[in-house]
């Protein structure tokens, strides 16, 4: 580092009053026009605006009042945001409570039960929807008629068979 750089680096410290020039530095400043010009600038800048007086008490009060007001505003904004979040959550909860029971009603278990319970009267037969009353009557009459002999379900009377005979009969039905 050259003497000019060293002196330049010390200028702000001397200008701020944190240190003083050494005899060697003073001699350099007296001999070096560039360093002398820089020192003139730095010392002038260090005094620039020294006449400005700040009303510290008034300034502190004003700044703190604004900060308090701003913080209050922040709190209000946060409260509004939280309220909106809570309202959203509440709406979502109500919606869920409303939708879930409907979903349960729509679950397949209950309709099946209903169908099973109402089966004799409620079998869905779409082909009968457009049938005339006379045709419906004919269908019902057919349902009421005894099952013809030879049906697999109403075959020979099984009441008189013992257990092994019943099992044999069932096995033969399964195999057929």
């Amino acid at each position, binding site marked *: 580092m050259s003497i000019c750089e060293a002196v330049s680096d010390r200028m*702000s410290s001397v200008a701020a009053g944190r240190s003083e020039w050494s005899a060697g530095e003073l001699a350099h400043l007296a001999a070096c026009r560039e360093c002398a010009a820089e020192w003139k600038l730095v010392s002038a*800048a260090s005094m620039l605006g020294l006449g400005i007086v700040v009303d*510290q008490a008034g300034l502190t009060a004003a700044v703190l009042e604004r900060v308090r007001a701003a913080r209050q505003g922040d709190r209000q904004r946060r409260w509004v945001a939280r309220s909106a979040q809570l309202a959203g959550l509440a709406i979502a909860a109500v919606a869920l409570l409303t939708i879930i029971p409907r979903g349960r009603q729509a679950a397949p278990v209950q309709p099946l039960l209903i169908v099973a319970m109402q089966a004799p009267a409620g079998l869905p037969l779409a082909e009968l929807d457009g049938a005339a009353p006379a045709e419906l009557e004919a269908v019902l009459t057919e349902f009421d008629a005894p099952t013809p002999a030879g049906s697999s379900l109403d075959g020979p009377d099984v009441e008189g068979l013992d257990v092994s005979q019943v099992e044999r009969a069932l096995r033969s039905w399964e195999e057929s």
Partner: protein
Amino acid sequence: MAAMTESEPRTDASLAAAWGAGDEGAAAEIVRRHAGAVARFLYSSGAGRSDVDDLVQEALFRGFRKLDTWRGEASLRSWLCRIAGNLLKDEYRRQRGRHLVSIEDDQVVDSADPHAEAAANESEAQLRAGLQTLPRLQREVFLMRAQQGCEYGEIAAALGTTPGSARVHYHHAVRRLKELVS
């Protein structure tokens, strides 16, 4: 021992932490320490004397609002000066380029040696005018260094550059000011 501890000056970092914890006395101490420096920085950067009070208040308000983001890499003073510099830039843009330099007659104070005082005021006015011709970064580096007595490291931290770059900006500023002011 306790008395010695109490008499030790609190660091800016401890004041900032106390302020964060709600201690308004700490805020008052921060204002007491740095408001004058921020005012001088603003004035030297081109703010009119009549605007300085409002600008200092705004700079400190902004500083307190985000004091929790000050990490201590830069000194609190240089950090506040940086905020003030940004504020002045915003103000300059808001006024659509209207030059902010305002050299008022009331800068001349009563003196036993009116000629010397007038010369000093002329010199100050020249320096302020010269500073206005510098690019912003050069001006801020020069003022932080020459006026605020900051080291290159803390200037770099405050201005978001490197110490080497801050040194280069300073020397460019000095070279241009020598031409303009001498």
